[in-house]
């Protein structure tokens, strides 16, 4: 079938998720239970392969106050660096059937803290002809006051060599701004925690992508 050169239709405009996004996407947090199965912030099941990690952080507004009604979603490859999606045909990287690679959560209404329980992703191939991408987690955030979902990426501080060669970090002109995408590593109670604070506006503003 011959395809037109320019798109036939235009994308539906975005609108803010509003303050009550939890009703639809995390009803338990809104204060009620309705669905039999619920999506959650726990990506790693008992059979998932890889190093268990916790990712946590807060989202700050331009007045340096935590955004306490933010929706955070992540999308990542498994420990071998493979996405659970039919378009991922990287050779030699096993699919982990029990690992969807996606999770969602809402920040705490008091503290603004959010967290995920997952595994550390492996490196993913770059675009054709490009260097491989350093291990990273794709973020998408939505909230009251955010008119269109913001895309960003978390990178790991213990992957300095891979980060230095990462083709996406390399696109960010100012080296200082690259740092906003590198999480902080902590060890707590025998577990590894990566702290990733997102700053929407102002000093040390997080890099957001139009991807």
């Amino acid at each position, binding site marked *: 079938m011959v395809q037109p050169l320019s798109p036939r239709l235009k994308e539906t405009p975005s609108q803010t998720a509003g303050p009550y996004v939890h009703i639809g996407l995390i*009803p338990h947090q809104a204060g009620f239970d309705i669905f039999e199965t619920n999506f959650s912030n726990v990506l790693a099941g008992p059979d998932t392969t890889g190093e268990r990690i916790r990712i946590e952080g807060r989202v700050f507004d331009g007045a340096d106050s935590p955004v306490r009604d933010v929706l955070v979603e992540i999308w990542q490859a498994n420990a071998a660096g493979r996405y659970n999606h039919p378009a991922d045909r990287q050779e030699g990287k096993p699919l982990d059937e029990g690992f969807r690679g996606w999770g969602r959560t809402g920040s705490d209404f008091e503290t603004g803290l959010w967290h995920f329980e997952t595994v550390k992703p492996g490196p993913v191939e770059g*675009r054709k002809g490009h260097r491989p991408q350093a291990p990273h987690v794709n973020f998408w955030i939505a909230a009251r006051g955010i*008119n269109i979902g913001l895309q960003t990426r978390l990178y790991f501080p213990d992957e300095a060599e891979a980060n230095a060669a990462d083709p996406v970090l390399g696109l960010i002109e100012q080296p200082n701004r690259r740092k906003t995408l590198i999480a902080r590593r902590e060890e707590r109670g025998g577990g590894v925690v990566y702290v990733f604070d997102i700053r929407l506006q102002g000093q040390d503003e997080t890099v957001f992508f139009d991807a």
Partner: protein
Amino acid sequence: MNGLDREFLQRDRGIHPPAFTPDYKTSVLRSPRAALISLENSLSEVTGPTFGRSEIGPLDNDLILNYARDGEPIGERILVHGHVRDENGRGVPHTLVEFWQANAGGRYRHRNDRYLAPIDPNFGGCGRTITDENGYYYFRTIKPGAYPWRNFLNSWRPAHIHFSVFGSGFAQRLITQMYFEGDPLIRHDPMILGIPDPAAAVRLIAPLDLSAALPLDMLAYQFDIVLRGRQQTLFENKLQGN
């Protein structure tokens, strides 16, 4: 492969509200000041989560019954239906569509909503479905009411239903709101007015669809959703730099 590995067309930011829309006051401190970094798609953007029908319950797309306790909710019974397509006009099959809304009186079932209009004991206000092989979806609900919000002193949101859609790649992720044909509050709403292209804003207004109404039972509104399309070219661009 159905082209699922192809990159997405660049998003036309002119049809979306920019981050900073000062008449919607909360956007002032929640909008980035630096420019977005444009990124050619890699596997990280062209892939995205998939959801199975087995994760969705049989009443998940029926808001009239999915929280019914001792009766059915009060309000105007409606069917909302439409297609999820991409910019190339192709239906987006088997994708998750989620929706949430206030009840007929404009009250949300949410611990932070303190509007004086009462909760409806038989209405939860959320649902979800997965599009069929053609990208078609539908759900049954109660038409939501307008409600006041603290923006200007006398700000009222038009009746609306929030939608969350996934598509086949994470870069298609979209949250939006559907409004109802003929609602006079639409022209006062800073969220709709934040869309720079008036023709784009109109696409968020669902027309009444009498042909899909069920006589003596419920009215219907049609809301079609368009997600980003994938590039159709068969040739790779010559790479620039690395």
